[in-house]
């Protein structure tokens, strides 16, 4: 046993000293971020670039506890910034209020939920909200199993559905937008928390249809086809940066947020970080497969941050299809 410990410790310490020693620095200020795994790639990109620009003087950590898990930690005061793929909910607002945690809600990018089919699928040209509802509503379970049950002109082929599991914010938003109630969905579809599994399902299956975040579609766009969605104005619109930005890709585009605790925002390095986020964040968000907000929106958001505009503009109730201008014009509530 002694030998093992000595050996382990010496191997470990030498390895440590050789590789790691130069990177140690003195105790520094750390900006702690946790929350949604959807927002994670953006947060990671911004944190990476920010640390490079500060030459390691400020440290940033990012976790993936999920939107809900992130808010739990945020409302205990453990984190400075919470990533969220949906607005903060009523119950979470209450917990935060009880703990005396005040925050600013800042939109940082859009995600366009993308409905995709196999490239060999030659019958689906576009989908209306009603079509999607027919496929995905809870009542469709075990009943709607063929394409021609959605629209009679489509072939009598089996309808193979792929979608995220019930723990995902993507699932929450899609069910809210399509079925009118978050988490109301049929259960008999292939569900996976790993979107790459859904991608494979659609790639390998002629009769498949699925939905996931835009970034996953962009990474695989040569192997699948995004279906244009008929928006409330009656136009068929495919997912694209332009269509999300002008609000025409509706209702399946959603804003992503960060929540910043007010006491953390008083710290110089957090202020700098948010400034960096809202000025350089746009191109970083696009680089990792998300849709940046219009330039004007970042300016307004930054102004709100500097003016310490507290609270959420949703009042704890999720909404679908709100434009970014309308969001930023609203008054916040704690």
């Amino acid at each position, binding site marked *: 046993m002694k030998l093992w410990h000595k050996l382990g410790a010496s191997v470990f310490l030498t390895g440590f000293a050789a590789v790691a020693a130069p990177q140690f620095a003195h105790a520094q200020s750390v900006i702690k971020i946790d929350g949604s795994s959807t927002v994670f790639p953006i947060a990671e990109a911004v944190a*990476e670039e920010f640390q490079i620009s500060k030459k390691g003087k400020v440290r940033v950590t990012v976790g993936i506890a999920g939107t809900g898990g992130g808010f739990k930690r945020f409302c205990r005061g453990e984190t400075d910034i919470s990533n969220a793929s949906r607005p903060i909910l009523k119950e979470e607002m209450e917990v935060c209020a009880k703990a005396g945690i005040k925050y600013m809600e800042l939109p940082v990018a859009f995600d366009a939920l993308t409905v995709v089919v196999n490239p060999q699928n030659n019958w689906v040209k576009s989908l209306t909200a009603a079509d999607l509802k027919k496929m995905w509503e809870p009542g469709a379970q075990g009943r709607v199993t063929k394409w021609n049950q959605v629209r009679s002109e489509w072939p009598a082929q089996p309808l193979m559905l792929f979608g995220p599991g019930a723990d995902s914010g993507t699932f929450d938003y899609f069910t809210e937008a399509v079925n009118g109630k978050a988490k109301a969905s049929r259960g008999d579809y292939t569900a996976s928390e790993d979107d*790459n599994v859904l991608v494979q399902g659609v790639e390998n299956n002629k009769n498949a249809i699925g939905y996931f975040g835009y970034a996953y579609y962009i990474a695989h766009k040569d192997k699948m086809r995004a279906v244009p969605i008929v928006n409330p104005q009656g136009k068929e619109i495919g997912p694209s940066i332009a269509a999300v930005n002008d609000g025409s890709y509706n209702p399946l585009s959603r804003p992503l947020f960060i929540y910043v605790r007010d006491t953390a925002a008083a710290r110089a390095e957090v202020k700098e970080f948010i400034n960096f986020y809202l000025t350089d964040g746009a191109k970083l968000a696009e680089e990792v497969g998300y849709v940046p907000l219009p330039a004007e929106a970042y300016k307004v958001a930054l102004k709100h941050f500097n003016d310490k505009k507290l609270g959420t503009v949703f009042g704890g109730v999720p909404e679908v299809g709100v434009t970014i201008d309308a969001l930023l014009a609203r008054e916040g509530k704690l």
Partner: protein
Amino acid sequence: MATANVPDYLHPDSIRTGLSRRKMLDQVFVIVGLVLMFACLGVLAVLFMNLVLDGSERFGWDFFTNFPSRRAERAGILGAWVGTSLIMLVTAFCAVPVGVAAAIYLEEYAPKNWFTAIIEINVTNLAGVPSIVYGLLALGLFVYQFGLGQSIAAAGLTLALLILPIVIVATRESIRAVPKSIREAAYGLGATRWEVTKDHVLPYSTGGILTGMILGLSRAIGETAPIITIGALSFIAFLPSSPITSEFPFISFQWLNDPFTAMPIQMFNWVSRPDQAFQANAAAAGAILLGMTLLMNAVAIWIRYRFRKKINW
């Protein structure tokens, strides 16, 4: 004639054919066993080769010395492998002494009654508890109650809890394998219970104890769920504080309180990324994690070999 009364099945010829048939069955079993064993090893080899090939473009010094990045080719596992090594160190230092002590008590000291029977059953049951349950327990107990926070210490203790039953069960098995006669001889010469344990039982069972420790650590090194629950990070571009400092007393335990990430979490994060280039990183990290496990096993086997050489009954 006596031979006339011998039944057919005792006839030398039929005995001979019976024997050769049974020997052939024996051979068949050997072959089946070999085939099955190579099938298992083959699956492992194919998996490992697959990971190595998929991740081949990432292997290199940079991969070990870079922090995570949004660009796959720039992203490395420095934070992850250092975090995993430190967590394993804490886990081994906590689980092994406690586990071995518990096993010695149960085998050598504890009276055999209903109370120890209940303890025994529970220890065995604990080995089957899903790891996420340990994560939730640790979140409440270590992270909040004891105030350890999202730290390496909390992660190490969580995984130590997780592998404690494995260490206890393996240690007990190997203690039980020490022949009774050895103990009795020692007692006969007037040794106390502790002397018998220290000088005879423990040295002879070291091999088994090490096996248990390796089984436990091999399980712990791949665990994702419990350390995500207690708050492991996914992006962290700095290392825990150095255990060696330039100022007196030259040794620091600050690293125990530092935030961390670990290999399985880094892999999980890369596997679920939209950008396909990260799949290569995930494969490379997987191969390295497997390599770390094998290395740990190799060290233990070597130590076990050295201990075995010293034993002469």
